[in-house]
């Protein structure tokens, strides 16, 4: 069951971060008429996959990823995309306070009832971690009764051990096609994965169907704050 929200604010560092575990939910919110704002902090300029045969150089990759991101947003029915202009792999080196302010201004403007981002300490990529820290810090500064809910994606190897199982599970069966379209839109990053995914779906592989259909989030545990 996906709760209806006033406004959903998604804050993630890379084009395609939304596709894997959030795109079905985004499409579902849009279907319900819930406004969704997606702030994508970088253009994934440092992606390693240039292809064989090559479709990009290190210098053309950002434009390609930008086009893919726009296509993914179209697939999800998302019409408020913000490209924030930071650079891939550098977020942890930005001024921490500036990062918090960036999040604060997005929250102030969109007044979300729900923010979705990564879980600090459990999101593997240094950019994910820096984004997660800024999001948590910005929300923590708000009065408790005014804070939006925070759903966080966690996938570090020790996640289950420490955070347990996710408490928010969205069944996105009705928007799975849109999710697949979003994944496919990011083809420069997902090309191998999609081949395997589609082969498994063709065989009705239960694990793959489950992975696509259920999106898993942790409500941020404010009583066990990361700092």
């Amino acid at each position, binding site marked *: 069951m996906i709760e209806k929200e006033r406004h959903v604010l998604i804050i993630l560092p890379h084009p395609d971060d939304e596709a894997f575990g959030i795109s079905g939910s985004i499409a579902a919110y849009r279907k319900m008429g819930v406004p969704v704002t997606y702030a994508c902090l970088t*253009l994934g*300029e*440092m992606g*390693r*996959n*240039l*292809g*064989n*045969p*090559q479709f990009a*150089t*290190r*210098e053309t990759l*950002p434009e390609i990823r930008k086009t893919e991101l726009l296509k993914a947003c179209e697939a999800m029915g998302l019409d408020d995309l913000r490209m924030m202009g930071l*650079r891939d*792999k550098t977020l942890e080196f930005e001024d921490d306070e500036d990062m918090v302010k960036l999040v604060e201004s997005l929250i102030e403007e969109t007044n979300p009832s729900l923010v979705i981002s990564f879980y600090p300490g459990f999101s*593997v*990529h*240094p*950019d994910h971690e820096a984004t997660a820290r800024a999001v948590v810090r910005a929300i923590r500064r708000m009065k408790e009764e005014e804070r939006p809910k925070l759903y966080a994606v966690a996938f*570090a*190897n020790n996640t289950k051990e420490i955070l347990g199982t996710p408490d928010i599970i969205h069944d996105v069966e009705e928007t799975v096609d849109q999710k697949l379209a979003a994944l496919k839109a990011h083809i420069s990053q997902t090309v*191998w994965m999609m081949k395997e995914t589609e082969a498994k779906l063709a065989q009705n592989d239960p694990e793959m169907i489950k992975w696509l259909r259920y999106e898993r989030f942790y409500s941020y545990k404010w009583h066990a704050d990361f700092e």
Partner: protein
Amino acid sequence: MDIVKTEHVQEVISSFANKDVYIHLETTNGSYASHFKEGFLNAGAFIRNVVVNFELGKIVGESPHRVGLKLPSGWVYAQGITHYQVDDLGRLLLAGLDADGKLSVALHISETPFTY
């Protein structure tokens, strides 16, 4: 990008000698390397839009090649170069791509700053 043609690449590198040029130098295993293989020491380095003026630049070895730029008081060096392109802005893009087409090393030289 094309497989490195040593003579052509050498020609282009030499054309940048004794000029102020912008450098992009990068090595990477990808940010997920130690996520997929625990204990893996994930190392990399990245510089972009640093201006240098080198007096001698060379590409050497069989593929993967090594490229070194000799500066009046220093060096710039990249190992593992397999592919190259001179793009429409006249920039030399050198890359080391593995069998899957994933970038391991990049060295770019340009007379104008790199964007992004």
